[in-house]
């Protein structure tokens, strides 16, 4: 019996089986217990049903007449609900991998590594992602019944071909759910919150599914060793804020095998703000009008030059990336070199399936709520932009930032000092060692 399917319910589900951040269940926790089997991490799926309600009782769905402005990110679908993922040892509770700002990471990762046709076909079934605001709103937000979903959880341990010996490494998987104000936003021309304050999302029939390999007697000692090690690529997230025309992101990463880095941006006032889309990954911008006011402001603070530094030296590129905006400030095009380096940071191989295109990556829009050229009108899933650098094309041992300073310098047009949040994600190689029920992560 080499393989078998496991189907696990969440540990912390209330008696009615319904989970929502709004009702005090901000974390989904699953335990894959100790057993003589090897877990195929890539087989992990989270399945369930999503209901979206417009009243606190959870009985009424949004419609075209009620809570009509309720919206969520079409490029994330159910992934918009996941704020943080943590994989830890069940017994010692030592953390194997944790990605904070998971929703922000996926806001770049998913549209960049899946195509327009992916979003128009299979992703609408598995993760409720759709490539257009209205079709997403009509079929998911305003679904008159529950929307079923079943998604993998992209992270270092699940994306590799890692096999975890559960006899030594039983694992807990915790998913922190996003607050409703982060998952939803208002699509009104003023960002109005009328009728939206009671809206919430609710999950039911939640389960984790996976496959485990049950070694034959002659494979036991090899596959279920009491000690061992494996490598995996993981994501470490950092947060910074840009407030000036010469913005610097500066961190001591403490990581010895850095493969790539990328940053996505959002005006800080949009974070966890029900009137704004918290998954926007567009260019930094100037101050925009508040919710309820006539939309104004939000002009792009275009990046004119980008420089990645290591210990104060230009690295990995020995030059400043002078963007096309620096050469011609009338251009509506995004700089292709910046896009290329962002895509390389996410995947060192040539990306053949991507949803980023001139439709959703350009300078045609402003970051406010208006219905003429506001960022919520950006087609094909919404704005996709960011800054990145690839350190190791071969996905080998990367670059040592264990004691060196990591910096990005960005000359930009942020003349009004509007704070813009920069979410920095570092892809690095980690090694997990385990012995006698204890683990050690070498970063």
């Amino acid at each position, binding site marked *: *019996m*080499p*393989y*078998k*399917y*496991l*189907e696990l319910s969440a540990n912390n589900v209330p008696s009615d089986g319904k989970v929502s951040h709004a009702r005090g269940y901000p974390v989904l926790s699953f335990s894959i217990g100790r057993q003589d089997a090897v877990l195929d991490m890539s*087989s992990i*799926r989270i*399945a*369930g*049903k999503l209901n979206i309600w417009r009243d606190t009782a959870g009985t009424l769905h949004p419609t075209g007449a009620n809570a009509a402005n309720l919206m969520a990110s079409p490029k994330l679908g159910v992934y918009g609900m996941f704020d943080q993922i943590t994989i830890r040892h069940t017994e010692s509770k030592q953390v194997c991998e944790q990605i904070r700002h998971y929703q922000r990471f996926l806001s770049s990762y998913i549209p960049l590594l899946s*195509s327009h*046709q*992916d979003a*128009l*076909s*299979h992703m*609408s*079934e*598995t993760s*409720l992602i*759709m*490539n*257009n*605001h*209205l*079709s997403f*709103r*009509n*079929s*998911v937000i305003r*679904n*008159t*019944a529950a*929307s*079923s*979903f*079943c998604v993998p959880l992209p992270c270092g341990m699940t994306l590799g071909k890692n096999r975890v010996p559960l006899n030594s490494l039983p694992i807990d998987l915790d998913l922190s759910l996003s607050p409703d104000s982060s998952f939803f936003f208002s699509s009104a021309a003023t960002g109005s919150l009328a009728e939206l304050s009671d809206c919430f999302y609710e999950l039911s*029939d939640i389960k984790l*599914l996976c*496959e485990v390999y049950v070694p034959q007697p002659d494979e036991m000692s090899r596959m279920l060793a009491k000690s061992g090690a494996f490598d995996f690529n993981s994501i470490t997230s950092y947060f910074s804020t840009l407030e000036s025309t010469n913005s610097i992101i500066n961190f001591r990463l403490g990581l010895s095998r850095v493969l790539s880095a990328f940053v996505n941006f959002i005006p800080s006032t949009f974070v966890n703000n029900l009137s704004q889309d918290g998954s926007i990954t567009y260019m930094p911008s100037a101050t925009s009008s508040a919710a309820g006011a006539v939309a104004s402001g939000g002009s792009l603070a275009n990046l004119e030059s980008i420089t990645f530094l290591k210990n104060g030296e230009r690295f990995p590129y020995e030059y400043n990336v002078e963007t096309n905006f620096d050469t011609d400030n009338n251009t509506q095009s995004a700089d292709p070199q910046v896009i290329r380096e962002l895509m390389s940071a996410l995947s060192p191989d040539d990306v053949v399936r991507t949803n980023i295109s001139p439709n959703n990556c350009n300078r045609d829009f402003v970051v406010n709520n208006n*219905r003429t050229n506001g960022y919520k*009108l*950006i*087609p*094909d899933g919404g704005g996709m932009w960011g800054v990145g650098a690839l350190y190791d094309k071969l996905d080998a041992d990367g670059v040592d930032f264990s004691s060196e300073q990591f910096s990005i310098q960005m000359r930009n047009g942020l003349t009004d000092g509007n704070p813009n949040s920069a979410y920095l994600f570092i892809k690095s190689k980690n090694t997990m060692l385990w012995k006698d029920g204890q683990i050690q992560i070498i970063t």
Partner: protein
Amino acid sequence: MTDEDDSGPDLMDLSEIKTDIAQTVQTDIIRPSVFSQNFCRFTLDRRLGFLHSDSKITLSVTPAAGNTSAYYPLHIGVGVLIDSCSLKIGQRTISETQSFSHLHSYSSLFLTNENNLEREQYLSQRCIAHKNVYADTTNPLSASTYGLDNGKNADGVANTLNAFQINSAASADTIAEAPTYSIYLSDLFPCLQSFQIPSYLINDPIFVEINWTPVSTSLSGAQVSARMCMASTDTEDTEYNITENEVNLIYDSVSYDADVMQKYAEGKGRNIVFEFKDYSLAKRTGDQAEFSNLVFPIGGNGRLCSKVIMGLQANDSYVARSLLNGYGSHAPTDGEELTLNLLYNDRYEFSIDRSNAALLFSTTQAAEGAVPMVSRQEYSREMGATITTDTFEGHAENTFLGGQFSWNAIRPNRGDRINTKGIDLIYKNPNLAADDYTLRVWVEIVKVMTIKDGQADCYYA
């Protein structure tokens, strides 16, 4: 594969051969040795080289008098003409597939939409790809639906196929210019998906036999074409005959330097053994109540089974004035759930029956190792109004695409040989609309082919 001389490359392998030997490809056009409107046989004589798996059979129909808008079902294209096919060597049947056109509907799910748009609509007329449908092309927020994309800019709300894809009998010229498409041998015979047959090592002739899909069917009540789809202006019961002169096997024969071929024949080629997958069909027909809680024995007794594929066809969907004719798979009624499980060797495959639509979709993805490129509304009917009401060849897309791609597959993952009781499929599809349905289930079975001393043989693993 049994190796008596390991020094040479494995010439049967379809993947890249790491060697610098020269390769020659010779292409012959083989005419059928037997042909009728029901059956066709190609006889492949022994010749130097390997029968390449990407050899093709070309097919065409003769536009029927009076009809000007016929086309093949959009998701399977010209594959609709093949009802069953078998590959024989001498008197031995190596591979045989029943209800091929329906199975082809399943396997076509895994072609990417981009591939259909840019390639398949020209090769086989498979053209399922999607695009946002904008009510106002100046407003990026106006696409509340999506629809089919074949590369044409729709004229208003009415999209059509490209002109060369239409089988029209409007004139002698259009009849003569009826499109000819092709299908790979490896699509017909799964055994050719990994290996090419060393035909020069086989003494017996190789036969490719095809039973054509009947010209018409009355499953939906009236007599309608079972081979074509057409616009509402055409006559549904018109029979479309296969054009004999266009039925050819384009035989690609791959050969290498004589000494390499000789060395292979005396080394690895002396005793070739390889495994491949074949499909065994089980069918159940009945009314809607039959499928509300069904335990269906699907065979596999004593075999090694690697996959179970299933789809439900409603008799009412065999309509020629449509986009897919009857070759889709009927999704559960909106608001209902399909529940699946397998029982074999006295144990259930899943400890809890699976009924979540997205989970069943993912189960199919895991079974095939590839993603079904269909949308939520095409697979499960959830919020079906998201498919456009615009027309394609005069037919509303939401009517004819919604819930017509609900194919499912399960991979038995315990690796056990199935015992003599076989596999039971647990299939619960409640509250189907009143109609007669047919549930087709293919069990993918591991077979072994041997070629020794010029004799080919085949048996179940």
